[in-house]
């Protein structure tokens, strides 16, 4: 059993509107799984189904190999995008309440909260009311409450929103630590740089359907199109370019006469670059020869746009 969560052809309708159309996902254990997609693609609906806030019309969800049941709630932690806390309740009291709702005993919850409050250096907030805290401070409490019951599966929906860069980094490190401790994490965001940084796997939802999923490195490989950025040193740029253009597909070339530096982009028919490298090495001194790997951002935009106009 290598998957913490599997959805099988999950379909959800709201009246006439289809929010999820036969979405099948496999979320491996001990990994960070990026759930991506444009606004309104169905990410939140899927997350709510995993949290049993909603129930699918068709299809099945398996948690750790078992059909998803109410008792699994204690093994899932969810940080929703639309989140908040009771404004007039004290921080400690509130955190205790939410922890107890997740099934922790009061004593155990207190012990763990003390630990986390010290770890994130917010010990003196215990008796403050939420309305006295800044947004970022409240987000920290919310993060602690989400992970406190040590769930097997954590779901973070835009976890970094509301954090300044320093605190965002602290939270990012905590997420990586959680993964290192064996937790599986579903991570939904629009910030592609954090997808690059954190995700092992991704799935892309668009218009209620899954249009792409798999290991991020595999997807990147699949999206490579054998384009290389090349920089060489030559005094005879024009002639060389002409010669090259006859043999290969060359584009966006740029010559710096002062430093005899010629940069260009090279499109190869396959990923095999040995021939061109051999050829180039006889002609000039090669400064760099780099294959361009598409970013998550590129993949996102390219895939979504290929599926029709993005609204």
């Amino acid at each position: 059993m290598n998957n913490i969560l599997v959805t099988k052809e999950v379909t959800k309708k709201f009246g006439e509107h289809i929010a999820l159309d036969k979405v099948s996902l496999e979320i491996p254990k001990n990994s960070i799984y990026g759930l991506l997609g444009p606004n309104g693609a169905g990410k939140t609906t899927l997350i709510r189904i995993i949290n049993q806030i909603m129930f699918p019309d068709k299809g099945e969800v398996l948690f750790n190999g078992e059909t998803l049941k109410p008792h699994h709630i204690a093994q899932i932690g969810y940080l929703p995008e639309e989140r908040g806390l009771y404004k007039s309740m004290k921080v400690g009291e509130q955190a205790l309440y939410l922890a107890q709702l997740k099934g922790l005993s009061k004593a155990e919850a207190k012990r763990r909260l003390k630990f986390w409050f010290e770890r994130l250096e917010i010990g003196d907030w215990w008796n403050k009311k939420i309305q006295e805290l800044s947004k970022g401070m409240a987000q920290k409490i919310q993060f602690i409450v989400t992970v406190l019951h040590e769930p097997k599966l954590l779901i973070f929906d835009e976890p970094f929103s509301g954090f300044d860069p320093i605190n965002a980094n602290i939270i990012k490190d905590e997420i990586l630590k959680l993964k290192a401790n064996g937790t599986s994490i579903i991570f939904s965001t629009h910030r592609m740089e954090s997808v690059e940084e954190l995700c092992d796997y991704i799935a892309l939802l668009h218009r209620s359907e899954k249009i792409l999923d798999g290991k991020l490195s595999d997807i990147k490989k699949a999206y490579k199109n054998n384009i290389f950025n090349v920089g060489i040193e030559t005094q005879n740029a024009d002639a060389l370019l002409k010669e090259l253009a006859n043999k290969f597909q060359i584009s966006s070339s740029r010559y710096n006469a002062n430093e005899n530096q010629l940069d260009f982009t090279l499109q190869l028919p396959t990923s095999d670059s040995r021939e061109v490298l051999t050829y180039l090495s006889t002609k000039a001194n090669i400064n760099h020869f780099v294959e361009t790997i598409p970013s998550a951002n590129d993949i996102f935009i390219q895939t979504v746009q290929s599926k029709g106009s993005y609204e």
Partner: protein
Amino acid sequence: MNKLPLIIKREYLAKVRNKSFVVMTFLSPILMVGMVVLIAYLTKINDNEKRVICILNESDFFSNEFVITKSTSYVNFSDISLEAAKDSTAKMGYYGLLYIPDESDLEKVTERSFLYTKEAPNTSVLDKIEDIFQERLQQQRLQEMGVSAKDFSAMDNRFEINIATFAGETNIKGINEIKALIGGGFGYLIMMFIIIYGGFVMRSVIEEKTSRIIEVIISSVKPFQLMLGKIIGTSLAGITQFAIWIVSASLLLLIAFSIFDIDPSALNSNSQITTGMGANMAPPLPTADQTMQLYAQELFNIPWAMLITFFLVYFILGYLIYSSIYAAIGAAVDNETDTQQFIFPIILPLMLAIYVGFFSVFGNPHGPIAVGFSLFPLTSPIVMLMRLPGGIGEGGVPIWELVTSILLLIITFIGIVWLASKIYRVGILMYGKKPTYKELFKWLKY
């Protein structure tokens, strides 16, 4: 582990720790008692006002009929002109001048008598003077007909028929109204409780929506559990508040009345119907004490245990029905200003129940309208309670009606709570514009 007690506890504590709730809890009895004391005090002052009426009597038909009472005294003028009498009355600042002219017979005297006052006269003053004239006229006519006052009073038979049920229970007149009033009191209590604490439930749902904590909570508990916990927690807070109100208000009232030396029964004196001239000639009725005893006995005979049991049944079912509707409304909207349109249809059956109760059930507790409204689930908690003090079974509410009413209420309770929890479940995750009734209907299918 069952999470419901946790939710109830939080909702209860959140409510009773709320500053405005605490202030209301302790301020309301003081305000209420203050109001009652003020009214009683003002009534007392009002009664203490002494009016002096001057009389210019030129007739022989009246001599000593005008007796000084607690609130009115008389000053007699003689041998001055009407104008002079008016002037001096005004100058001395007395209430008014009663002019009785000298005429050949009593009819004419009464026809030509006038009461002059500075402002339009008080009705109680008028009543008093008119009574004196009427009585004098009556005496005169009786004399003319040769009937002695003694014979007349022997003739005056005020009659009240004895009433009893087939089961043989005798009743005294008016007790049905009093019983309905007691039931009405219970019904009114239910209505107030629903409106006040239903509103609290609604606001608490809206608060969870606007603070965006709702999704965090319902990833841990079922929306239905949260809704139920909220309703129970809030009503426990409400019961606490009611208990504090009742205890502190009665204590304060007791203290206030002993300090200000106000007789609570004085408050009711206005409602007593004066029987006019017949009063002093009427045959001996049961004295007030005897009547009070009878009423007390009747009140004692009201099946209180039964009444309170059914009060609790109707209260719990009725309150749950209405407060789950309030919860659904809270879930459907984003802020309190949007709730008006949805609240009106809820208040309507409650108001209807109270009005139908007071206008129809009091007069005829077992008439078709009373029966209909005590079966209809949205009004039965109030209307049935107004009928119940009359007892169950023969002479009271038929058992089948009671059973049907409660069954219908239970079925409605299940149906409404189910519908409300569906709307609640969808609504708490909806932000943005206020939904229409059509959209609410669509949510039921989500």
